[in-house]
């Protein structure tokens, strides 16, 4: 007997409803909500103790990190752990996502011809199932007050690099005000990009932390990238007051000194205030001031760059305020501002030549075009969270970056401006001290002024969007 299409549809709807109800019940009835499980396992605490919602740190987690991954309760030295304890965490995301990029130049073909005969501007949309890279976190203490963190990280194809490698001397002379870190590490950004609650290509990073003006060749001021250097950091007993000062190689975290002998500094200070029922509010500032090369010495031709021999250092800076505001137990707002400025040399396309970011070499006798100016910009990001419970968090973000001065006079004042909107929620169906799992859902929309091809169009603004759903898990 054949079923009619109507009754089949009804059956499919019925089955679909049952599946949805089952999924809902399964998620809703899961017993409890969940960080770096290696730390959670060590101390017997749930992820929620240190994370607003995994992986974003809360105040207690920030203090734990500032103490060198120690709770300061004499259970910190590894001697207290079972000999079988291995402080390793694997983290990966399996997902489905859809990316839609506007204004892509696409070749066109005439019938019967195999070579392109023209170009057109099209929107390219790609969707499908995918993976993130793998993060292999290992960290903790080597001994009381000697900490380490090692993070080999891969891209989705499995090619590994060292994202973080650092050792830290904690509480020197018995004072929490003196801690020294050496290696490759995340800059002391209070709103950490390495612990984001968002995962899409554009929403998973803070645009503010990576902004480079159009045509600018300076990659070295990206405060969101882990950097190689040494950091002095200190904080009060309860972490209300904290500061850090880092000396960094201007190489954007690239090992083997491929660039030159330039250095940058990254400085932060912040103060938190107890505001009773509202919670603990924190305000602070950061500043990155540095130099990076524009002259690339060569051997055997214009492209035979001598590693580590770049000179002609020019300056750049990034500075701003950070605010972490809490409105009771469920709502908070994270705010970061930035004013950035690059030397006019960078703005005119000098800078990271060996990676192809810059296009020009500041060789002897080079002069800047008349009227060249230092490009500068201002930006702000707002990231509100609604924490229903440690197991369910809703995230929003608005970022905008506006050029305040283009390097070349006459350039449209809005060229390269960015606006980005992100909405997401993460649901942790269980929360234990052993593993983490989040069902992650996110939408991001990013708009940039003037960076698309024109081909006679009145607007060259580019809009890109991405939607994803996936399982973010670690153990």
């Amino acid at each position, binding site marked *: 007997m054949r079923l009619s299409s109507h009754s089949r549809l009804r059956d499919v709807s019925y089955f679909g409803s049952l599946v949805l109800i089952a999924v809902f019940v399964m998620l809703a009835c899961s017993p409890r909500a969940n960080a770096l499980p290696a730390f959670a396992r060590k101390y*017997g605490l749930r992820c929620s103790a240190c994370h607003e919602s995994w992986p974003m740190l809360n105040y207690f987690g920030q203090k734990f990190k500032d103490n060198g991954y120690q709770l300061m309760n004499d*259970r910190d030295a590894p001697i207290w752990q079972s000999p079988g304890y291995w402080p390793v965490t694997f983290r990966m995301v399996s997902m489905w996502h859809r990316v839609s990029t506007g204004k892509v130049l696409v070749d066109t073909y005439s019938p019967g011809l195999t070579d392109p005969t023209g170009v057109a501007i099209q929107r390219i949309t790609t969707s499908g199932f995918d993976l993130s890279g793998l993060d292999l976190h290992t960290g903790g203490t080597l001994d009381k007050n000697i900490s380490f963190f090692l993070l080999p990280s891969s891209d989705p194809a499995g090619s590994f690099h060292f994202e973080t490698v650092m050792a830290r001397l904690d509480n020197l002379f018995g004072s929490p005000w003196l801690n020294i870190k050496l290696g490759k590490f995340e800059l002391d950004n209070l709103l950490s990009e390495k612990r984001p609650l968002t995962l899409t290509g554009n929403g998973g990073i803070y645009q503010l932390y990576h902004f480079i003006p159009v045509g600018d060749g300076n990659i070295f001021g990206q405060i969101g990238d882990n950097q190689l250097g040494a950091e002095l950091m200190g904080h009060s007993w309860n*972490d209300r007051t904290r500061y850090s000062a880092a000396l960094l190689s201007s190489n954007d975290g690239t090992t083997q000194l491929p660039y030159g002998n330039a250095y940058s500094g990254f400085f932060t200070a912040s103060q938190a205030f107890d505001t009773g*029922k509202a919670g603990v509010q924190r305000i602070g500032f950061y500043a990155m001031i540095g130099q990076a090369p524009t002259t690339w010495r060569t051997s055997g031709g214009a492209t035979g760059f001598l590693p580590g021999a770049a000179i002609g250092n020019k300056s750049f800076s990034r500075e701003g305020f950070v605010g972490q505001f809490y409105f009771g*137990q469920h709502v908070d707002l994270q705010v970061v501002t930035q004013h950035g400025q690059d030397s006019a040399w960078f703005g005119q396309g000098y800078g990271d030549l060996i990676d192809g970011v810059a296009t020009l070499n500041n060789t002897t006798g080079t002069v800047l075009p008349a009227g060249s100016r230092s490009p500068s910009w201002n930006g702000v990001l707002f990231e509100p969270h609604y924490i229903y419970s440690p197991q369910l968090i809703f995230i929003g973000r608005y970022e905008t970056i506006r050029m305040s001065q283009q390097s070349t006079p006459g350039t449209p004042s809005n060229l390269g401006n960015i606006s980005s909107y992100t909405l997401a929620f993460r649901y942790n169906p269980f929360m234990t001290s052993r593993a983490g799992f989040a069902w992650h859902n996110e939408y991001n929309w990013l708009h940039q002024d003037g960076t698309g091809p024109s081909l006679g169009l009145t607007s060259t603004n580019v809009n890109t969007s991405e939607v994803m759903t996936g399982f973010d898990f670690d153990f």
Partner: protein
Amino acid sequence: MQRNNLRKWSLLLGAVAIVALPMPSWAQLTKYDLESRMGVESHVGNITGHAKAAKADYRRYCVVCHGELGDGNGESFPWIDPKPRDFQLGVFKCRSTPTGTLPTDQDLFDTLARGLDRSNMPQWSTFTKQQRADLVAWVKHFSPRWTNEKPGTPITIPPEPEVTPERIKAGRDVFARVQCWKCHGVLGQANGPSAATLTDDLGRPIAAYNFTEGARPKCGDTDRDIYRIFMTGLDGTPMPSFADNIKPDEAWDLVFYLRTLMSQNSKEKAMAKQLGLKPVDPNAPAGQQ
């Protein structure tokens, strides 16, 4: 006849069950019982804590060890030692009040921020004062003791006298007289003859405090804290109160002597070294150390 007896017994057992089963007991505290105590408050300075307001924080930070019902049976219970406190018993180590009495709200408030060294209890110093006061109220709501009893009156601690070599020697005599060495060892290394036999009130093995390994004393590391510890005792552990055995002046002497056993540098330690002070001799006749 037999059938009538059976019916009678069944009725009787049924009636007993109906009356007995709903009776509250500490061992079988339910969420229902706890809900009824949700109005519990704490008072610390000018802050009033409300149990209800701490529900989310307790779940976020505390439940993994202390359990949903505050019975110390959270998911980490099997792996940690010392075991988490069973709040339902209403028995606390760190108090300013005499042994056997409930602690003050301030005692619990201070314990939260200080943490408990040599245990898995961290320092929750990042909380706001309001959060801590709320959590104190939450802790109180687990035990019926708080509805039936008032906290004890904090003991009086006289001003700390000047430390002298004589006082340190006198402290050593007190250490010998009240037999601290039986658990803590003559050098304070927690290896006295009774150390291996110690258990807490629930019968679980417990270690004596080792003065020499550098850990902070559980209930605070100032001289006043140490004074308070042996005058109030650590309830729930074998550490008794010596309030009836040691006079206040002698208690300060003992504090000074205990400082000489600790690994941290102190003026007491320097004085003891200058004196050439020897450890107590367990076999010496009373008063002849």
